[in-house]
């Protein structure tokens, strides 16, 4: 099972011939991801790592079934690329691009909603269902197939936690990076719902941070609608107020946006809260997962 992607998922990569797109495509192919096509305007008709490259998604769609579009297009052109993917009725768009302006992110998100496309990101490392399919940039060595669902705003924090999980024998059902914000289409709450409904997932790890109020919405959902154990880790406990902590969304602009307030809400909602990745493993042991 897993969520959103599995061994049957067919992937198209936008920006496949760029430096990052080409390097990461190779790693994903080695992992076993079924990359059926790539798109780079002007490079149509060529192949890369054996994958056919097209000028437009429409051209690719004539020859291939595509479930997910993974976008490596730079911020300046990313909105256009996203609209092209949505126009082609793609179910899931994974937008790795960082630095897309908020108003452009709004346009993408609102248009996707009208067309029924879900958008992961922007500024996401993507997602992986270990052993089945990888549509992202996660380092392979931290991945292991299993039953822990992981959702994170930050890519690197999810690598930290998966490294710890994998080294201690806890595999993952799906690891999903929703992006650094401050605007999200797929939220923590949405992924909690998906993990709750996924038979492979036995426990959920929620990785959050300072800034915004999404963790409060997640906590409210955990309280009413999640039966599986949730272990949360909120980083930025020592972050100063008002400072931009790297992610566009990671800035404390009110009391509810602090790590402390989110931790309190999650504990109240029935989530276990860890202070570091090792404590997450300890909770899993204690819970007998």
């Amino acid at each position, binding site marked *: 099972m897993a969520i959103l992607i599995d061994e049957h998922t067919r992937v198209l990569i936008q920006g496949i011939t760029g430096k990052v797109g080409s390097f990461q495509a190779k790693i994903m192919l080695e992992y076993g991801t079924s990359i059926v096509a790539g798109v780079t305007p002007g490079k149509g008709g060529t192949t890369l790592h054996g994958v056919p490259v097209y000028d437009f998604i429409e051209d690719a769609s004539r020859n291939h079934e595509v479930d997910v579009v993974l976008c490596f297009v730079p911020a300046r052109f990313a909105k256009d690329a996203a609209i092209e993917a949505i126009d082609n009725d793609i179910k899931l768009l994974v937008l790795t691009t960082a630095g897309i302006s*908020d108003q452009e992110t709004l346009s993408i998100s*609102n248009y996707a909603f009208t067309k029924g496309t879900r958008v992961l990101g922007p500024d996401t490392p993507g997602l992986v269902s270990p052993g089945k399919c990888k549509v992202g940039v996660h380092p392979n*060595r931290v991945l292991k197939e299993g039953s822990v669902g992981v959702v994170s705003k*930050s*890519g*690197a*924090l999810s690598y930290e936690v998966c490294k710890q999980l994998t080294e201690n024998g806890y595999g993952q059902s799906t690891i999903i990076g929703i992006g650094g914000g401050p605007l999200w289409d797929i939220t923590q709450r949405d992924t909690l719902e998906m993990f709750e409904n996924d038979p492979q997932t036995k426990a959920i790890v929620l*990785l959050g941070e300072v800034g915004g109020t999404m963790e409060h919405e997640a906590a409210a959902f955990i309280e009413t609608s999640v039966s599986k154990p949730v272990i949360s880790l909120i980083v930025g406990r020592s972050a100063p107020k008002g400072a931009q902590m790297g992610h566009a969304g990671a800035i404390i602009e009110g009391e509810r946006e602090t790590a402390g307030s989110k931790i309190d809400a999650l504990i109240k909602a029935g989530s276990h809260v860890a202070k*570091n*990745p090792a404590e997450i493993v300890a909770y899993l042991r204690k819970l007998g997962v």
Partner: protein
Amino acid sequence: MRLLEFQAKRIFSEHEIPIPKSVLITSVADVAGLAFPTILKAQATVGGRRKAGAIKVAESASEATPAVEELLNTTVKGHRVQAVLAEEQVVVERELYLAVLIDKVAKLPMLMASSAGGVDIEAVGRDSPEKIIKKYVHPSVGLPRYVLQYLATQLSVKDRMADLTSIVEKMFAVFYGYNASLVEINPLAVTPNGLVALDAKILLDDKAAYRHPELFDQIKEEQNRLAKSEKSRAQQLAEEYGVTYVPLEGEVALISDGAGTGMLALDLIRDVGGRAANFCELGGLAGTESMQQALEVVLANPKAKVLLISLIGGLTRMDEVAEGIVNYLKEHRVTIPLTVRMCGTQEEVGRAKLREVGIETYDDLPTAILAAVNGVEAD
């Protein structure tokens, strides 16, 4: 980026949003040309200027001279004032609040208004939320007339419906035209001569800077000249290079290759009794050059006693950032202990490169953090 009041008002004026007549003055000599009475407003990109004593009223040149002198030498919340906006005093009957912003939860532009203007709007929202009107404005729907009529009724300015409509429409034009995150008028004054924006606040989205290069260049040039904030060498370098850098009070200098892992490192440093000297992260796509720049930034802080570089690459390639570290060490003498934690994409190549210059890396983050924090104590 937050604009200075006079910069925001220049944009208002270009869009014909009514503002009081004003002159920007940068020296006491400029007082000679003013009309009185006048309001003297220190130009700094901070809120709460009235409370901070950064806004003064002068009835005459003899009052204005010492006031300007004082304002030009003052520091408002860490910003040294270099310019004062001298504004004509208008007759104010009531003060309203108007803003256009992005509602992050609904993911829609929002029009916000209140009859309680001229004060801290967050306090109004907290203490009497019923006084704040919020209306989503979907880009494909535009501004419905009923919203404007509702607003005019709630704000008791039905007799100024045309003025209000024009101002709100123009605020949206500014919002969309410059990819703004916020366009705010607080207060919007009701005067015998119509509605007038007494203050102006515009936040531009830095992520859209390349769409408006001339505007951003002009704003930055003016702010460098007229609103010098007190910045350390490290902060200046960070701005120049576009590196995320937050100065902190401690001794452990930190470079991370992601925001989440960086904040985790920050928390773990504190949990083991250490104190971070800064937060610095390279984003998910760091390379050789950005690593060299980050090193230059964090080591420009004289309080740094040890350096911890914590890397867990996904998009970031360890071979590339290792090369950045090696290049930096070739060109600079680093006198403080260096701890490197490295794993992830291309880690074997990265580790080998560092081993060649005598640096052994850690794989485990808590172990690396302990080593770095212990390095401070050994010092």
